[in-house]
């Protein structure tokens, strides 16, 4: 596990208790919400906390949240450009 995508996948699995899912089950371009992983609005809140806790990124604009959680690739790109820790 040597790239940000895989690190994020593991953090998502841990934060959301996705016990039955492994890193290899999550496609980098697959949508996290709705069809893909099937996450919901409470998961979105947990992911916002995850970004703040692990990367110092505060998501204040809901539109930004909606955009960056589209897929692991989009999320990794945003994290690499905006992380403060």
């Amino acid at each position, binding site marked *: 596990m040597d790239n940000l995508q895989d690190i994020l996948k593991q953090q998502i699995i841990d934060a959301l208790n996705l*016990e*039955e899912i492994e890193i290899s089950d999550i496609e980098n371009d697959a949508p996290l919400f709705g069809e893909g992983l099937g996450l919901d609005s*409470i998961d979105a809140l947990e992911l916002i906390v995850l970004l703040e806790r692990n990367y110092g990124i505060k998501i204040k604009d809901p539109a930004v949240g909606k955009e960056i959680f589209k897929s692991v690739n989009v999320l990794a790109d945003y994290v690499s450009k905006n992380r403060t820790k």
Partner: protein
Amino acid sequence: MTSNKVYIKSVAHISAQQPLSDEWLSSPVVLQGDFVQACEPVYKDYISPMAARRMTPILKRAIVTAKAVLNDTDVDAIITGTGLGSAACSEKLINAMIEEGEAFSMPTQFMQSTHNTIGSLVAIDRKCHAYNATYSQDGISAECALLDAFVQIRLGKINNALVGIHDELPKSWLEVMKRSKIIGNLMQVPASETSISMLLDNNLVGSKCEIAGIEVAFNTSFDKMLSSFMSHYGLPQVDALMMGKNGWEDNDKVYDELLDKLSCVPALHYKHISGESCAASAFGVYASALCLEHGIVPATLQCDNINCDVPVKNILLANASGNNKSLILLRSCD
């Protein structure tokens, strides 16, 4: 055949004994140590992993026991009794806030840190929009929840109700009880966790037993309660007395006056089987319902190994929890 009588139609448990099974009647798990965790079933057989991912153990137990008793039955009410509710979740939330200096929130733990979470989640799972209430009255939460369902069915307001009694043991609570020597010293049974769901119904067909009367009271003696119970429900015939003794002298001595009054009937107990918790008295109700359904009292429930040779048709349950007390009369359907 409906009536204004109240019957226990089905019961399911997840406790220190074999989960979702009556196997303990013939071969009970022997409880050892100060604390015995509930014996969990394989949850993914009952709940999808995605649905279960945010559920704490107490929530999974409530959902699974509710599923086991209801199958496809729709209910007119969901009534929950829980002494500590989702305290384990609150504990996790507060500990995280202390460790992280209140910098980060924990959305899931925050949302689930109420006593009502259990009944609400069961209602969401069942898609049930009917009456939903939660009672939190320490060790008589079960009786309060049962009393609500009992009164509403007797009055004809509802035909049936899912009554769930659920308690788990948060680490901090366990520590406090150990430090106060109540667990591991004074009590002679281990602390444990109990989740029991019951379907109460006004239809006799297929029922385990009838609930003939319930009385709860605060700061009074069993002697006075028995008089009040008789005035409400008539002079009940009692074939056996099921007590919530846990081996702690201060707790157990309050049952003496009942034992004196009912000295001619067999005395029964169950907390060596269930362990002690705020929900333990529900296990007494469940155990008594099984005795009445099968017409026998297994040796494991009998105090002092006194044989119950006479057929048992009426069991009076007595439970004391601090200054709270309860009496429940269960009657055979035969």
